[in-house]
C-alpha cells in the first residue's frame, strides 16, 4: 500500500499529513509535486490543507488547473481513494469532484479551534472504524469553510448519505451554536456517491497524537488504511 500527499505551491499541511501516515499510521508515503501527471502505484491520495496559489481568485480555484489534478480525476474515476483536507476539500469542490462550494465564513473570521464532529455516515472507506453518531474532536483552521450548495444538491447529498461529518456540540447535537462557519446544515465533510472521495474542512492530521490533545483524527486514517489492506488482500486472493 502506498499513500501520496500532493504538494501545491502554498500547501502547508503536507508535512503534517506525511508525518501522520509515515510515523503514526506507519505506511509508505510520498510527497507528490503538483506537476506530476502519473499516480500509478498509489492507493490513496491526500490533498492537504494550506493556501494553494495564495488562495488567489478563490480558495482552491487555481490549484484545480495544476497538472496533477487531471491525474487525480482519473485516479478517482478508477475508484481509488482521495482525501481532501481543508484547502484540499476546497480544491475538490472547485474541480467538480465533490458538489457545492466553500465560501467565506459567516462571521468573516479565520477560525482556528477544536470543534466536535458527529459522524453521520460510518459506512465509508474513511469512517468504517468509527460508529455512526460518534463525536470526534478535531480542529478546524480556515476562513473559507462555509459549505453551500443549492437545494437539489443538498437533497441528493442527504438521499445518498453523502454527508459524512456535521459540526455538533459536546453531546453530539447538531445545533446552530455548534456551527462555526455558517455551513449549510452544519456540514463539515462530504463524500461522493461512490464513497471513494472525501472532503472535510477539519484537520484529522492534527488530531492523531496525544500530545496534540486528541487522537480522533487517526480513526479516519486507520479506517482508510484498513480498507485498502482488505482490498489489496482480496485482489491478491482474486488473482491466485
Amino acid at each position: 500500500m502506498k499513500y501520496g500527499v500532493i504538494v501545491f505551491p502554498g500547501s502547508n499541511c503536507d508535512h503534517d499529513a506525511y508525518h501522520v501516515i509515515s510515523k503514526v499510521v506507519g505506511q509508505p508515503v510520498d510527497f507528490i509535486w503538483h506537476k506530476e501527471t502519473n499516480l500509478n502505484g498509489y492507493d490513496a491520495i491526500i490533498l492537504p490543507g494550506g493556501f494553494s496559489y495564495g488562495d488567489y481568485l478563490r480558495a482552491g480555484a487555481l490549484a484545480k488547473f495544476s497538472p496533477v489534478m487531471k491525474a487525480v480525476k482519473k485516479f478517482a474515476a478508477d475508484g481509488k481513494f482521495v482525501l481532501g483536507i481543508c484547502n484540499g476539500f476546497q480544491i475538490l469542490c472547485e474541480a467538480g469532484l465533490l458538489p457545492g462550494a466553500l465560501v467565506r465564513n459567516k462571521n468573516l473570521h479565520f477560525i482556528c479551534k477544536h470543534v466536535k464532529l458527529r459522524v453521520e455516515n460510518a459506512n465509508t472507506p474513511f469512517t468504517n472504524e468509527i460508529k455512526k453518531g460518534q463525536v470526534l474532536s478535531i480542529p478546524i483552521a480556515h476562513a473559507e469553510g462555509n459549505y453551500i450548495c443549492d437545494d437539489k444538491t443538498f437533497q441528493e447529498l442527504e438521499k445518498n448519505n453523502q454527508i459524512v461529518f456535521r459540526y455538533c456540540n459536546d453531546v453530539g447535537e447538531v445545533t446552530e451554536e455548534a456551527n462555526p462557519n455558517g455551513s449549510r446544515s452544519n456540514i463539515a465533510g462530504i463524500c461522493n456517491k461512490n464513497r471513494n472521495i472525501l472532503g472535510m474542512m477539519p484537520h484529522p492530521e492534527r488530531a492523531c497524537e496525544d500530545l496534540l490533545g486528541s487522537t480522533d483524527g487517526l480513526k479516519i486514517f486507520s479506517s482508510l488504511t484498513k480498507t485498502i489492506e482488505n482490498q489489496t488482500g482480496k485482489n491478491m486472493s482474486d488473482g491466485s
Partner: protein
Amino acid sequence: MKAKVYVTLKPGVLDPQGKAIHHSVELLGFQNISDIRQGKYFEIELDGNLSASEAKELVSKIADEVLANPVIENYRVEIES
C-alpha cells in the same frame, strides 16, 4: 480590444464581506443604502485578431472555466473595441 468581466455572487448566496462593508458604510453615516454585495472585476486585453463576437465567446469561456465558480457566481462579459 478590451474585455471586462463582472463576477457577482448569485442571489441568495450569503455575502458576509458585502454585509461587513455595508455595516461600515452605515457607521460612517451614509444613508439610504439597503444592501451591498461584493463582486470581482477583471480587465482582459485581447489582441486585435478577433471580431467582437469571437472575443465575447472566448472571454465567456474563460469566465465560465476560470474567473467564476458557476456553483456560486454569475458573470457578465462586456467587449470594448
